[in-house]
């Protein structure tokens, strides 16, 4: 049961690693694909995880940015995120964590009130982004803020 720490490994040269945490595999896969399609000077690695803690047996590079994907249609994804947040070291929240809420467009399917995720992001002092991954047009738009967040964090 390891806690994710931001500086426990040496950074890799010219590479950034983003960890996406969320319950829905298809959603994470789409997001990862759209992010990798974007053109960038440095190399980008995207890891997907259903929840934290991550298995310690796997050899992985240092994580530069964690994105918690919360599906507003599913209370389970919010509970999963809250559980996973416990396994993240406090120093990660200095600009290396981001929340992404999906499904806000279909208001009739929402099980979670918007204020709940706003309060969550506010509590953890991390930015909250909204995205609708079902709509093909918004996927590349979503990838952009992700890379911006990654650029903000020190390499």
């Amino acid at each position, binding site marked *: 049961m390891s806690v994710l720490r931001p500086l426990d490994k040496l950074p890799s040269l010219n590479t950034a690693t983003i960890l996406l945490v969320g319950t829905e595999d298809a959603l994470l896969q789409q997001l990862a694909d759209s992010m990798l399609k974007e053109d960038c000077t440095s190399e980008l690695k995207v890891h997907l995880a259903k929840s934290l803690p991550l298995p310690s047996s796997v050899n992985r590079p240092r994580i530069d940015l964690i994105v918690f994907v919360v599906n507003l249609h599913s209370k389970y994804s919010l509970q999963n995120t809250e559980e996973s947040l416990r396994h993240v070291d406090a120093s990660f929240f200095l600009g290396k964590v981001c929340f992404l809420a999906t499904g806000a467009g279909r208001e009739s*399917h*929402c*099980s979670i009130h918007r*204020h709940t995720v706003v*309060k969550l992001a506010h509590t953890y002092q991390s930015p909250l982004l909204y995205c609708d991954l079902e709509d093909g047009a918004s996927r590349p738009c979503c990838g952009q803020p992700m890379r911006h967040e990654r650029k903000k964090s020190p390499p």
Partner: protein
Amino acid sequence: MDSYDASESTPRQSTSLRPEDYFIGATFLQKRLESVRKQTSFIPTPPRRKIPHCSQLQEDVDPQKVAFLLHKQWTLYSLTPLYKFSYSNLKEYSRLLNAFIVAEKQKGLAVEVGEDFNVKVIFSTVLGIKGTQRDPEAFLVQILSKSQLPSENREGKVLWTGWFCCIFGDSLLETVSEDFTCLPLFLANGAESNTAIIGTWFQKTFDCYFSPLAINAFNLSWMAAMWTACKMDHYVATTEFLWSVPCSPQSLDISYAIHPEDAKALWDSVHKTPGEVTQEEVDLFMDCLYSHFHRHFKIHLSATRLVRVSTSVASAHTDGKIKILCHKYLIGVLAYLTELAIFQIE
């Protein structure tokens, strides 16, 4: 969806709105800006508290008069305020709407085989369906089939019923001027074609706008908790929930029925503050049901979508369909629906 994106930048936005106040002055527009600003506030709001339904006007509701409202499935719509609507002109409106319906049907826009073109439209007010004295009176529109034979003086069969009401609509009433009548909740029962025709006439005559009112899972769970909290002498129906599991090719439905007294016992163990229902209590109530189900079936109901809630008080479907079973809590049910309708309008 601008309101969602704006939440991130609202701290900057709110400071830029303040100079506007001095220029516009205390007008209707300023009040609208205030309400918009409140809604997009970045500061998280405290958990919502609702006072369950005890209106002093409830005694005025004659059970006989509202009996026709119960045990019927109503389709919900939200309606923007009506411009220059007058309760004294109801007979005039009946005539105009009657003529409109006959004209529309003869145009062939809504032709059904064997339909009777002899229809009569009646507008009437329904007294007592309001939350406070400020709320405008509810009124009813009915389409009756007129009997073909002149000798028979009987009232025809009711083909379509629609009624407009407003319960505790203070937040909307404050923002509109005198010429408007606010009746944000519209309920219809009957053929879709008739609803469309009536809707068109109202939109043309009173410059208003109907939109279907869908109820999302979040609000359905609130309704489940509030209605389970209602004290009933005897229960007429089991408490039932229906979830839709998103999976391909066909979605799966999960139905969960509980004995109403067990549901009430669960609610009583969760409920702390008397007279109020909080977000935590609703979440805990639903989480108890989810964890019980998970223990037995290893399925996370919280990952599915709540589609239908059915209790002895009322039953509601996410598509905006409601059936009220208990006249005692009629006002309470309508109050929550009015709030949802106002939220949709704003």
